[in-house]
């Protein structure tokens, strides 16, 4: 019995030792020389493996950064902090991009916008847009099926009962995946410092808009009047108000707009 135990231990131990040595040998022969900076950069990145930068994970992005094929600001979740750290590691000065946030430029949910048909089918905005351009009468408005919600890697969008997406600004990193997937380009990225945006992208005007949505911009032009906006920074273009990101005298316009189109951000 004693020699059985010794034999088993000896054979297995020897086998383990041999295999270990073979592995060690192989790891020398087949060693792949990895630039040590890649690991340092990978550690400095946000580490979420979200793919927003366009690469398959943080390791791939680190490789691309070291090879000089990518810019650190492509890591939108990391933001300015990551750009700074990566610049330090690589010894290359890079300026961070201005932080952006996504906004939903439509307030025509199921209580406001009229439907031209009852839709039952695949609950996906991209799919609906292909099929008869959706069930909503407004051809510019949000389809409310939540493709943006699924596209967000950070869970920063959720659907309200009114069938409109709501952005959780704290979680939004401005990566732009929701913008890319929205077939109607209702979601857009604006600079975080912009305090107000127009919650409508309808290029229709007047009575037609009122027929199909109670929350739509009718292009009445009130906001562009010098009496309402003394700085004159609002112009009507394509039946929608256009203004620079640092427009600051929006209080009167927001108050007087008959459709309540201007959304003042809480930030």
């Amino acid at each position, binding site marked *: 019995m004693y020699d059985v135990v010794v*034999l088993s231990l000896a054979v*297995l131990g020897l*086998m383990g030792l041999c295999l*270990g040595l*073979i592995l060690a040998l*192989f790891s020398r022969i*087949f060693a792949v020389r990895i630039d040590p900076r890649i690991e340092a950069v990978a550690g400095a990145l946000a580490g979420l493996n979200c793919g927003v930068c366009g690469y398959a994970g943080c390791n791939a992005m680190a490789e691309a950064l070291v090879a000089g094929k990518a810019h650190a600001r492509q890591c939108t979740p990391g933001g300015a902090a990551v750009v700074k750290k990566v610049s330090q590691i690589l010894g290359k000065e890079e300026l961070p991009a201005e932080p952006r946030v996504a906004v939903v430029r439509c307030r025509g949910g199921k209580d406001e916008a009229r439907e031209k048909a009852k839709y039952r089918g695949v609950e996906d905005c991209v799919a609906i847009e292909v099929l008869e351009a959706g069930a909503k009468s407004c051809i510019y408005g949000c389809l409310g099926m939540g493709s943006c919600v699924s596209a967000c890697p950070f869970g920063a969008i959720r659907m309200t009962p009114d069938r409109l997406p709501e952005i959780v600004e704290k979680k939004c990193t401005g990566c732009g995946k929701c913008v890319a997937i929205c077939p109607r380009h209702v979601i857009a990225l604006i600079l975080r410092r912009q305090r107000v945006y127009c919650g409508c992208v309808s290029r229709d005007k007047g009575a037609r808009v009122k027929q199909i949505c109670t929350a739509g911009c009718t292009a009445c032009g009130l906001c562009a009047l010098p009496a309402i906006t003394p700085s004159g920074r609002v112009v009507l273009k394509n039946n929608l108000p256009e203004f620079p990101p640092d427009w600051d005298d929006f209080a009167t316009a927001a108050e007087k707009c008959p459709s309540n189109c201007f959304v003042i951000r809480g930030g």
Partner: protein
Amino acid sequence: MNLFELFSIFIGVALVNNFIFCQFLGLCPYIGVTERTSSAMGMGMAVIFVMTLSSIITWAIYEWVLVPYGITYLYIIAFILVIAAFVQLVEMFLQKSVPALYRALGIYLPLITTNCAVLGVATLNKQQLFGTPGSLIKCIVQGFGGGIGFTLAMLIMAGIRERLDFAEVPQSLRGIPIALITAGLTAIGFLGFAGLSF
């Protein structure tokens, strides 16, 4: 040992005693990696590769080390040891020599190092085939067939799950629950192969 017998072994392990549906081995990647057909295919290829080569290596270890020293009762430990080491070697080799293949298969190789299906194939070989004439060839066929059956099961599941993404599944069943129900139904389907022999 003739071609017919080999064919019988192949069909036996791929369909009649399918690793996933009949022997319930390797269920972890079956549920985990079948969300997309592309990843299921990658995993399946890696499993076929590892199962076939592990069959050869475990046969060699058994016949040339365990039997001569009379310690065949240690086969489980020995098999795990060599399979794990072997997969590591393959991974190192691939990373250096065929980086493209490494990137395609690479992440799955560590996953299947101690997958019970791989040890299962080796154990099955030991129980049924070692000591019979022509055991090495039969083991290779069984390993390969096991991998093929595993891949088949994964692809079926992945294809169905991709479709399920667009189906009207009740809220409480979305995700894993409906996948498990699907697995059960497919397993019942595979019962149709029971008793199939040549």
